[in-house]
């Protein structure tokens, strides 16, 4: 049934572009994300991000007021950068624009050039941290476009080849994981290291947004991709870039390929067996060694668990929603375990979701699920009436829908605002698939147990 599209948006299934850029910048060592716009944007995003990670998330702002909106915000931006440099001791400042400054027409790259020149003239240019700018008007694209655009900007502006760096004998890969959880990133680093490879992972929020208890409040949390690492990405043996929707577009990995000839391997986010296989295959290729026993065993245990759990899952109807590439990975996984994804929805609107879903479910899923691109929760709810799901898989903003439908919600991705430890959710690799499988089976068992009057002690 084809419905008319709505003009209004109700309960969006996406966030705005600058938020993604701030998250990406947070994953770079010593970096401070900074928004060029009014004060509220930074504060809202901080609150939203803090509620998920339960970690400090400082986002500086140029705090524009009414007069700056009229006369331009350049002076405030420069003052803000100065404060972030001197008071935070930033090793990099990532400046993202907002809808306000895009619309008043502030030319941020030019303002930054002026700033550098002023610093040079004042003899203060030494120790000036790299300033990376990215254009992120919130009226075009979602937080994921903001995230990828920021990663691309970092590579574009820092990997210029004219920085002196030490040639190292170490063989390393560049890994662009996209927006995954700190637990995911730690696992990915572990996997790459087990192949005997070095790794420049960009960005890396595994420590910056999941840090230890400390003696002192860190002005900038430790961890993140080292700037020196980013500058030498051009000499990586390969770039692995996750996200099917990015394939063929001008990404960070593409720049490294075009500028330095680094072979680019684009693949899906490694969720589930086959997508993880593709990742391991790429690592075998890059390292020249076979998948280490430890991981082969994890894979074996995963397949074993697929078998153990299959009866509980076959034919169960799932609705998957969230960021496009996460939805693609989850759908690929769910189709493998016999669950029937019946609706795949995202607030993202790259135009690629449908094709990617078809590709990753080919041969496993007939008929293909309904794919809703650019969807909000109103639309998802309406489609749920048609597809009558048995469970929802997505972030915590689907909670009210799941209670309305009376089906379990398996919480994945971002944000998870209503549970503890959401940022420690593991999604990727054989291990991640194992954990997702356990949680999904248990969600289904719990519901069946609760609803049965018998009170089964064995399920």
């Amino acid at each position, binding site marked *: 049934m084809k419905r008319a599209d709505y003009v209004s*948006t*109700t309960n969006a299934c996406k966030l705005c572009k*600058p938020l993604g850029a701030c998250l990406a910048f947070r994953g770079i060592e010593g970096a401070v994300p900074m928004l060029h716009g009014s004060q509220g944007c930074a504060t809202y995003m901080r609150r*939203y991000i803090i509620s998920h990670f339960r970690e*400090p998330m400082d986002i500086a702002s140029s705090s524009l007021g009414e007069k700056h909106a009229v006369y331009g915000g350049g002076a405030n931006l420069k003052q803000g950068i100065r404060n972030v440099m001197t008071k935070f001791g930033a090793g990099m400042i990532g400046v993202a624009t907002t809808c306000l400054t895009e*619309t008043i027409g502030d030319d941020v790259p030019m303002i930054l050039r002026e700033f550098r020149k002023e610093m040079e003239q004042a003899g203060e240019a030494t120790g000036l941290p790299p300033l990376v700018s990215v254009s992120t008007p919130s*009226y075009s694209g979602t937080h994921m476009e903001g995230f990828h655009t920021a990663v691309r900007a970092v590579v574009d502006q820092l990997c210029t080849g004219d920085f002196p760096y030490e040639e190292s004998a170490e063989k390393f890969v560049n890994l662009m994981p996209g927006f995954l959880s700190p637990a995911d990133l730690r696992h990915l680093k572990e996997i790459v290291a087990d192949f005997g490879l070095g790794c420049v992972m960009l960005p890396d929020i595994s420590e910056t947004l999941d840090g230890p*208890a400390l003696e002192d*409040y860190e002005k900038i949390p430790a961890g993140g991709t080292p700037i020196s690492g980013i500058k030498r990405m051009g000499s990586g043996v390969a770039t692995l870039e996750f996200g099917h929707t990015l394939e063929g577009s001008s990404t960070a990995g593409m720049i490294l390929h075009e500028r330095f000839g680094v072979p680019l391997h684009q693949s899906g986010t490694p969720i589930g067996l086959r997508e993880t296989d593709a990742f391991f295959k790429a690592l075998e290729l890059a390292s020249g060694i076979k998948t280490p026993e430890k991981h082969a065993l994890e894979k074996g245990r995963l397949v074993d668990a697929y078998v153990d759990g299959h009866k509980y899952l076959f034919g169960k109807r799932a609705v998957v929603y969230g960021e496009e590439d996460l939805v693609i990975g989850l759908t690929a996984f769910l189709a493998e375990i016999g669950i029937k994804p019946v609706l795949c929805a995202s607030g993202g609107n790259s135009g690629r979701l449908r094709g990617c879903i078809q590709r990753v479910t080919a041969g496993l899923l007939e008929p293909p699920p309904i794919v809703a691109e650019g969807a909000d929760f109103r639309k998802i709810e309406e489609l749920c009436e048609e597809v009558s799901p048995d469970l929802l898989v997505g972030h915590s903003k689907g909670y009210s829908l799941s209670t309305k439908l009376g089906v379990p919600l398996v919480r994945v991705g971002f944000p998870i605002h209503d549970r503890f430890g959401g940022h420690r959710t593991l999604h990727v690799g054989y291990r991640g698939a194992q954990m997702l499988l356990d949680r999904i089976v248990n969600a289904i068992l719990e519901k069946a147990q609760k609803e049965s009057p018998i009170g089964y002690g064995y399920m």
Partner: protein
Amino acid sequence: MSNSASVIFQERKDQILRKGQDAFDMSCNRESLAGAVSQRACVFCGSRVVLYPIADALHLVHGPIGCAAYTWDIRGALSSGPDLHRLSFSTDLQEKDIIFGGEEKLYRALTELIDRHHPKAAFVYSTCIVGIIGDDLEAVCRKVASEKEIPVLPVQSEGFKGNKREGYGAACKAMFRLMGSGDTEDISPLSLNILGDFNLAGEIWIIRKYFDRMGIQTVANITGDGRVEDLGRAHGAALNVVQCSGATMELAKMMKESFGTPFLRVSYFGVEDMAESLYQIARFFEPKDPGIMERTRELVKTELSVLYPQLQEYRRELTGKKAAIYVGGAFKAFSLVKAFRLLGMKVVLVGSQTGTEEDYKELYEITDEGTIIVDDSNPLELSSFLKEKDVDVFVGGVKERPIAYKLGVGFCDHNHERKQPLEGFIGMLNFAREIHSSVMSPVWRFVPRRKAR
């Protein structure tokens, strides 16, 4: 420790004060310093939080998606009936709307949503970008109001046009337009409107029950568990009681000017302020109802007889512990200072995002020697104050929580995310329980900063 030790941003030096060391001279209500990571939000935020709890109105955010997404179901402002306020509506402006203007989309979105939800009124919030592209919100709202025959009210809340305080003003102006339209015939001479309470965790219901027991009719909740129709007849109430003065004081002043409604400033936090607020109200109505004072005394006595023994238990363990407060409006801070004193605790830091000179003067008067008073602070300053004063518990909102936790300091959310009522006499008990359970938790023994002591 010298004063300069905690001055991180020279530009902000006169927004920080130490009682006893400095004479009262404090600068505030300024634009936030660029790059300082202010804890403040924007004009839109101010309007949104004030109007949000009006549960039978449509709240449409006109702008790109962020502003609506970050304020979806943002506060635990409960409703006893409709809960349209918990949905997040946006025009989700796209590039082409920015180029060609968003009025058409706004018109269509409003029409669509009003047809779908049949709200009693609609609030249309303008965001930064709307102020720049120049959509005529007023005209679109007027058109839709006449077509749909409900009030459709523009809220001029462009984010960059000031701070949260201006947003409160824009919200008050929008609400004021609803007033004077409703029937006031059945309103008792002993009646009031509750201003500046947002019914977080059901708090306004506690307060309304106190008023019931005193024999006072509550006409309109402004805005917790709020209704459009009640706002329309709010001018018929004999009195406005105003809490959180920053948010709704302007409305109280407008109502006084237009309808002659007198107002009292009240606070429902802490035993002292809660009781005094009820007595103030009773004194106001005493000429009309001489028995009201006795009923109020009885109420306070009953409540305290239950509360005090339990509070004493907490007080025993909390005495001498140190507290820090950083909240949105300074008014709440006054009550918190007193509430901590009641628990035997010492407030060593108190600050707010949007306090006025008057507010800070009052804080200066009620705090102890050595207390740091700060306006529009930021993580670097707050963390340095917490360390310097070796604080045991910090009261704030979500953005302050990780600052406390990273330093191994207890925390109490006194803002949107609270799930336990902190107002009223029962609220004081909940507050004491929460402070106690955070301060006394064994986890602090294991955090590095305290382990080293």
